């Protein structure tokens, strides 16, 4: 289960970045507020480093209205492609699991 969750969080990050760029704090806050997804906010940062190294996201600095500048994360074309592929596969996977689970209820 934990492996499946780790795999899915990566794509949840990509999905959050689909419509707008986000900085580390708001990204990890959004994931932790969603509930049941991440163990803690800090555990998201190793994942952010990895998907950045894999070229799925890129980062840039932006001034902040208060305090020091923020490191923003932005989806790359590769990231967008990976997200779309996952969405298709996820729907099929979810539907199949749901069908089988319903069957065993009766």
């Amino acid at each position, binding site marked *: 289960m934990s492996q499946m969750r780790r795999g899915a969080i990566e794509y949840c990050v990509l999905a959050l970045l689909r419509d707008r760029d986000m900085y580390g704090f708001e990204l990890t806050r959004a994931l932790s507020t969603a509930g049941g997804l991440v*163990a803690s906010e*800090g555990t998201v940062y*190793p994942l952010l480093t990895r998907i950045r190294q894999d070229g799925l996201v890129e980062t840039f600095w932006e001034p902040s209205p208060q305090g020091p500048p923020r490191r923003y994360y932005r989806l790359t074309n590769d990231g967008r492609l990976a997200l779309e592929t996952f969405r298709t596969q996820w729907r099929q996977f979810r539907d199949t699991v749901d069908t089988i689970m319903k069957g065993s209820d009766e």
Partner: protein
Amino acid sequence: MTTNSDLDQIVDQYLNRLEMALGDLPSERRQQLIESITDHISEARATLSANSEVAVRDILDRVGQPADIAAEALADQTTSSPLRASSTRRKVVAAVVIIFIVFLVFGTFLATRINNGAPSTTINVTTSTVTSVARVVPNVIGMSLNSAENALQQAQFAYMIVFACTGSRVQSGDVAAQTPSAGSSAAEGTSVRLVTPPKSCP
């Protein structure tokens, strides 16, 4: 009554524990993670209406146990994607091939020298040039963090960012100081320390 510096101390203690927990990571990745989490904590503290001890401890609880973060980072190290693994393997193969060629060239060179009866004391000089590549550190002072990041990456350097007030007049988000300094030479992959002022300086 807990003062602000007491609260800073609580955060520092947490960051120290995190740094120890991340001991098994390569130093560049460790720095990067600590930098991100330090930023995270200051952003979270900036959203508080009152900076109480309970509130700060709650922020640290949400960030999580250093051991959990370390476990996640180490798991990432071992399960890097196949694409990256193969590119690393290609680099290793390339390095082996280069070393092999160097030896081959040397063997031939030495053989000729020995045949000529000349002493062969030049070996050490050349083997040492193979191990580390020295590069010139570019000047990034006055640049935005984004341009500095690009310039350093192009010159094959890593970097870390420190938010601190210096006497310099540059604005927050621009580089006020750098170590090693521009024009000096450093090994490829060296982490260059960039100092930029936070939003408000006294």
